[in-house]
């Protein structure tokens, strides 16, 4: 990959909680317009990695560049400007339950771009239609939605302001296979139409194959393998092999105490 073309460039990212080392010098590049999926076991620090890149957690060491600009340690106001380029779909959707669905989707249009409410609502209903939800859903409260609908609303909120970069944290976990595939389709479709750069996390391989240009595997705080999505079955990496075949035996030792 060419140096200058990296949209997101992570170097030596390290993060521990007390004595527990979660990230140990992680390097990752995401090129402009590329869709990278990070796979890895539960608790290996995938969510922590995203939160460090987003500035929600403060890493001990390392550098994160977005569009060539160092973003670690930026003051809050500067950070807000950078975050305007980014949309994020949280693992648990994280919809604001004191706001109606359409206000959730239009949140950054109303609060950050200061669009007037009727225009914001029209845009929100448009975006909801893009993820396959009718205008009547817009008037509901988040608590009135099923898990799959919440994910779709969260997806709509993440793409509503046409971000250049979108992060997806386990967009399909906990959904039935059909709904999972619907979400995958939507991600692929919304990314194509937006031309956005995306970084996703999943342990659902079907989902990874569908949305990824490139797959990277996180293990013990580092990226131990990365390559084009279609090469994942021929990686010749014992860790990757064990993961994609879901075998209990292999170089990855799950810490199971009896």
């Amino acid at each position, binding site marked *: 990959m060419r140096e200058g073309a990296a949209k997101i460039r992570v170097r030596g990212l390290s993060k521990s909680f007390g004595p527990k080392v979660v990230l140990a010098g992680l390097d990752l590049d995401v090129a402009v317009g590329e869709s990278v999926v990070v796979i890895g076991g539960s608790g290996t620090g995938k969510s922590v990695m995203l939160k460090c890149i*987003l500035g*929600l957690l403060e890493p001990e060491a390392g550098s994160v560049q977005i569009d060539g600009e160092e973003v670690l340690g930026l003051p809050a106001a500067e950070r*807000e400007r950078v975050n305007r380029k980014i949309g994020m779909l949280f693992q*648990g959707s*994280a*919809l*604001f339950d004191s706001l109606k669905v359409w206000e959730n989707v239009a949140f950054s249009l109303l609060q*950050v771009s200061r669009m007037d409410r009727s225009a914001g609502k029209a845009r929100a209903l448009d975006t909801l239609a893009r993820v396959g939800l009718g205008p009547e859903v817009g008037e509901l409260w988040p608590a009135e939605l099923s898990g799959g609908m919440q994910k779709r609303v969260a997806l709509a909120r993440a793409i509503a302001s046409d971000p250049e970069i979108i992060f997806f944290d386990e967009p399909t976990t906990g959904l039935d296979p059909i709904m999972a595939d619907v979400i995958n389709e939507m991600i692929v479709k919304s990314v194509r139409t937006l031309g956005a750069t995306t970084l996703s996390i999943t342990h659902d391989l079907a989902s990874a194959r569908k949305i990824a240009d490139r797959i990277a595997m996180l293990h013990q705080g580092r990226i131990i393998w990365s390559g084009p999505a279609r090469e994942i079955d021929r990686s010749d990496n014992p860790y990757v092999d064990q993961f994609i075949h879901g075998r209990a035996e292999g170089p990855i030792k799950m810490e199971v105490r009896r």
Partner: protein
Amino acid sequence: MQWFLASIGRTFLTFIAATGRLSLFAALGVSHCARPPYYPRQILRQMVDIGYFSLPVVGLTAIFTGMVLALQSYTGFARFQAQGAVATVVVLSMTRELGPVLAGLMVAGRIGASMAAEIGTMRVTDQIDALVTLSTNPFKYLVTPRLLAGTLMLPLLVVVADIIGVFGGYVVGVYKLGFNPAVYLDNTFEHLERIDVISGLTKAAVFGFLVSLLGCYHGYYSRGGAQGVGTATTNAVVSASILILSFNYVITELFFAK
């Protein structure tokens, strides 16, 4: 013995650290009052919640307090033939002490608890992180409107409480204790000075600020799921109540100690 001293020292250090964090939190919340953007909808929602929806609770508290004050002071003062002071005692106790303190405690139970629960839930379900990724400062969006609304609305509530409390005393005085209505009202206003009302309203503003501050503080730093939110709610109410009672003494001292 050594163990005992060490534990006192540790408690003291924890206390200092907590005080420091709370002061920092308060300073940050207040500093955002002076910096745009503002969220008028949020402020309005909080004002209605604190001011309007607390009216029944505060009104009931005030009317019974006024009534019992009249009854108690009458039976007490009858022992040395000073029944004429009943109206004065009722109005001074209400405006200087009981109006602000009781309204403050009731609002701590109602509003402080709900703020801690709402913000705490937002914390543990990643909604606060979601605000950051939507380029919205969570402090400005969540904390500052609540601080403003608490500080502005509690004095208004206390004005209402004072009036209702005096009315309660009047009802008991006139219909049960046989005072002449005109004389009772005359006595009420004869000895009432401006400083009595002003000190009471100052207390109310401080208490309103404290209730919002502790509700937000405990919610903002809550962790660990539903149980953590429960703890945060309890802590918000208990600490706000204790601070209200101690600040009540301090403010009284500032106003009336000669």
